């Protein structure tokens, strides 16, 4: 445990020096504020509190931004050590590869948690400031924070796995961008296209829920939208959220990080210094 904490402390310091903490937090706060400001328009007569609407908009933001931040922080984790030549020495220390990965994960998760808490917090302050009653939606805000951290953990693990597979930072960066595009952007586009061509047939009723749960980003969106009863204000893929039981999307959110870390460990174990 002390090895994990020492690694985490060192990684956090490095991320702080490389201004990753500042960049991640700045990005989240900026986007959250923009969304909170823009999201105040459509509330109108919808029978939900102000904050739940903000949470719905923040969910759509987080689906793109959290995986991106996680991949940006993680793609260098193993490949960077290989390139700098620091890995052979590290591996002669009495510390296991799992401990190294968990140390890095802990540091990166802390940064991500800090960034989303400050970002969403800024949006929360804005929402409550214009409508004090919005504070009753605080539960959905807390849920958004921890589910964002879980979503981040999945993509951090995936980033470590790609980093270990590529063994070069440039290759790992390319793979990370590709993964982000496929998992976060193209996956949803493909699902939308299928829904349109299917026209409410077997695919939409049977395969779509499974497809949504199989993708951690979609599971995250479905979980937050259905839990926050904000499905009404969400469009597109989010509309399908109502059809999926809450425990299923929650389970997907919890299982994916474990799966991703397992994959990362398997890939890291194959790296010969």
């Amino acid at each position, binding site marked *: 445990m*002390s090895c994990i904490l020492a690694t985490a402390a060192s990684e956090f310091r490095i991320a702080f020096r490389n201004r990753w903490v500042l960049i991640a937090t700045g990005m989240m706060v900026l986007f959250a504020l923009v969304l909170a400001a823009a999201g105040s328009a459509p509330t109108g007569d919808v029978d939900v509190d102000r904050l739940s609407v903000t949470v719905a908009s923040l969910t759509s933001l987080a689906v793109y931004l959290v995986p991106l931040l996680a991949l940006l922080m993680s793609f260098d984790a193993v490949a960077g050590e290989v390139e700098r030549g*620091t890995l052979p020495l590290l591996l*002669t220390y*009495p510390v296991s590869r799992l401990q190294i990965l968990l140390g890095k994960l802990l540091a990166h998760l802390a940064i991500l948690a800090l960034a989303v808490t400050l970002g969403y917090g800024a949006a929360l302050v804005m929402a409550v400031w214009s409508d004090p009653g919005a504070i009753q939606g605080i539960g959905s805000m807390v849920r958004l924070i921890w589910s964002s951290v879980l979503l981040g953990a999945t993509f951090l693990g995936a980033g470590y796995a790609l980093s270990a597979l590529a063994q070069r930072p440039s290759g790992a960066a390319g793979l990370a961008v590709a993964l982000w595009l496929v998992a976060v952007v193209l996956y949803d586009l493909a699902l939308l296209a299928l829904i349109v061509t299917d026209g409410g047939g077997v695919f939409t009723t049977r395969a779509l829920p499974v497809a949504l749960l199989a993708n951690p980003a979609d599971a995250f969106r479905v979980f937050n939208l259905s839990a926050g009863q904000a499905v009404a204000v969400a469009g597109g893929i989010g509309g399908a959220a109502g059809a999926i039981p809450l425990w299923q999307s929650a389970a997907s959110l919890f299982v994916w990080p474990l799966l991703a870390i397992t994959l990362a460990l398997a890939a890291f174990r194959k790296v010969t210094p």
Partner: protein
Amino acid sequence: MTPTLTISQLTKRFQSVEALKQVSLTLAPGKRAALLGHNGAGKSTMMKIILGLIPFDSGEVTVCGEAPGSAAARMQVAYLPENVAFHPALTGEEQIRHYLSLRGENPRLATELLARVGLAHAARRRIGTYSKGMRQRVGLAQSLIGRPRLLVLDEPTSGLDPVSRRDFYDLLDGLSADGTAILLSSHVLTEVEARTDSILILSGGQLVAEGTLADLRAQAALPITLLVRPAEGRAISLAAVFPEATIGSDGMLRFSCPQADKLPLLASITALGPEVADLDVIPPSLEDIYSHFSRRDGQ
């Protein structure tokens, strides 16, 4: 006393290339062994196997009674890689504190460790601003953590100036007096000659020589060189007496003779009295012995 490091019949293949062939050696506690060999002779490969960083094909390796790379072995072995590198964003002190924590030691010892390698003044500067010699000292400092029983040092003095090299070997003397076995590779033969107990020469993946410098000198049986300076105007007459000698452009007579013939030859030269102005006896240098052994196979 049980040896700290035992290697028997170690063989390692990279695809079709045999990097190490049937290498056997032992290293007792407190002994300092120098591993010599040309580039690609298998020095780094052997070190990585001892550290458990790479697997091997056949043979047996025991490090402090444990399998190489096992948690128990890693607790007792310290390593200094060739061209050691660290994260440039950390300071020397932060990096050493991290390594101390990984070995379960008190991170506060970092200041003392850095002072021991002469880096106290730069402890709070980022490693990115360090020179190569300073990075090498950080590498040395981390290898001293927690009184290791086996030190594996790959080209430890590269990048160090002569004074730092002497300080470094003084550090090693202190460690070996405490019972730490040391295996180091180097290209600087003169310092290896003076500061290690035994020499191992690898060539083409095979251990071609092993022993103290005196052992190797006897095994190699290289000829001794005698340099004779003739007295003024006597060069021609002297050369006529010794047709086996060659005359250099500097007017010196150069003799090359086996160890056994040294004394008779000396006697016959000194018998000439005033014909000879000066005489030097040059034993084969470590370089000569090293080239003798590493050329014998393949090279």
